[in-house]
């Protein structure tokens, strides 16, 4: 077992020679980690080959998901984009205000406490948000907008906005904080007020980091299953521009149908195709988000 990444190993020669059993154990663990990650993507692709064979790219454009006849993922893809977009629109003003206030106006101890609170919020299980959504949000949306059914794309968007708020807030705050204090001092030395400094100096400087934070939030929102599944109404249809109708996202579809598809190869393969689509979307958005975050950190 000789890995060919000799160049990548630590240049400390004696250490390389003294790799010892422990080093091999660690290398093995690393290999397991690598296998898990690569295996996930490979598995999704390989297992969905039958559906790509039978549907081709029409899988992404088809409007009908009729088990046994045809599989089209357009309603789910549209639903995912609409719900996520809605969540971002709703969360952006709130999260940015919170981040700006936390980073520019709060003292360091208070800021740490705020971060702790955000961590608590981020840690609340999705099923709890789902339970709260089912009990309060659906009824609220139904009453406020005079609908027959409160399980709509809008409800899911609102719930997701609350769920990704801590992620977006805390990461944007990191980005704002990463702007060196020299810039702030220079701006204040020129006679700018605190708000002008924040708006004209800190915000433009930290824009890539904020974009990264939002993208990472989007990644989270796209993959959320349970809470969305409980409030979205689970109806496969291309929603058009009306957000006050029931819909379906990719994860909610997977959550609803995975258990019943366990026996049927064709159905299962279609779900895997859906999963692969979701994985591509989330991985792309996350890598972009991390790139922006890294860029702002430099």
């Amino acid at each position, binding site marked *: 077992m000789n890995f060919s990444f000799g160049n*990548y*190993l*630590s240049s400390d020669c004696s*250490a390389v020679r*003294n*790799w*010892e059993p422990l*080093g091999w154990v*660690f*290398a093995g*663990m*690393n290999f*397991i980690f*690598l296998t898990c*990650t690569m*295996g*996930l993507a490979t*598995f*999704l692709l390989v*297992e969905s080959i039958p559906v790509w064979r039978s549907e081709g790219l029409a899988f992404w454009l088809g409007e009908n998901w009729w088990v046994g006849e045809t599989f089209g993922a357009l309603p789910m893809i549209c639903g995912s984009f609409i719900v996520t977009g809605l969540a971002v629109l709703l969360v952006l003003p709130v999260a940015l*205000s*919170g981040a*700006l*206030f936390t980073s520019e*106006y709060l003292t360091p101890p208070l800021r740490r406490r*705020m971060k702790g609170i955000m961590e*608590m919020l981020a*840690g*609340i*299980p*999705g*099923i*709890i948000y*789902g*339970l*709260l959504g*089912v*009990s*309060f949000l659906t009824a609220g949306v139904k009453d406020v907008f005079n609908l027959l059914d409160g399980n709509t794309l809008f409800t899911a968007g609102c719930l997701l906005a*609350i769920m990704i708020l801590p992620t977006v*807030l805390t990461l944007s705050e990191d980005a704002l904080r990463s702007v060196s204090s020299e810039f702030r001092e220079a701006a204040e030395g020129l006679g700018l*007020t*605190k*708000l002008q400094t924040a708006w004209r100096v800190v915000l433009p400087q930290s824009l890539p980091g904020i974009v990264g934070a939002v993208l990472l939030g989007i*990644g989270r929102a796209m*993959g959320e*299953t*349970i809470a969305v599944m*409980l409030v979205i109404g689970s109806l496969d249809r291309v929603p058009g521009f009306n957000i006050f109708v029931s819909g379906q996202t990719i*994860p909610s579809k997977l*959550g609803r149908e995975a258990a019943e598809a*366990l026996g049927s190869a064709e159905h*299962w393969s279609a*779900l895997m195709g859906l*999963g692969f689509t979701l*994985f591509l979307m*989330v*991985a792309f*958005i*996350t890598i972009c988000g991390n790139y922006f975050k890294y860029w702002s950190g430099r």
Partner: protein
Amino acid sequence: MSAIAFEKVVRVIIGSITFIIIGLLVAIFSIMFLKGFPAFHGDFLFAESKDFGRAGGVFYQLVGTLILMTTAVLLSLPVALGSVLFQTEYMAPGKFKTLLAQLTYVLNATPTILFGLVGYLLFGVYLDTGVSWVTGSMILAVMILPTLQVSLREAVEALPQKYREAGMALGLTRSSQIRRVILPQCFYGVVTGVLLGLARAAGETAAIMFTATTFSGIQFPQSFSDPVPTLQTHILILAQEAAHPESIAQAWGSGLVLLGLVFILTLMAWVFRTRVVMESDL
């Protein structure tokens, strides 16, 4: 409006938004408490659930959640520790190392339902463990791997360079350096990672709902191929039975138990992390 007045108005607005956000956490906790507390009759935590979850307690559900999250962390910790130490101690900086770090983030962001789908196929079908707590634990173990890795990596990287140098100057081999210097110094980081991993595993529903759990009729798992009931899936099923007020009441009760569990774990992780920060300031 003068600039100073405008400034004040903006500050008040974004300040109140921040307080509303804090209020959100308070609101969620108080709603859960108000709604869930009535379900806590005498032995809610220590009684079996009866009548399809409409009566009784959540003892076996709680046990199921605890079994799944503990096994997951036990499986995940060695892999996380090994891979992080390999990456930080044995590998030289380079593209491959950056790639590995990126993979951690991708794995962390992967929607949890996908772990359920792939995990069921890999463990449940190909390794033939079926719908069982073993399948669930393995799925959760892969799922929390990045959580553990991130905490461990933070702890290892926060270690002052002089500790390593001192170890090297004493002629420690790399493995005794890890055993004698790095692991003891990163102990709190490991604990934080474990607690966060437990919390994440406890709160997860999508990955285990069709791979590891059953709704009722099972108590302690008798073998490796038995499913377990869990709090998460218990809530999921009860929450959808809107026609029965008793079901919803039980769902709130179970929700409060689950939230309490996750809250305690996160709080403990927070305390340990603050400790790390304080020590690295020295």
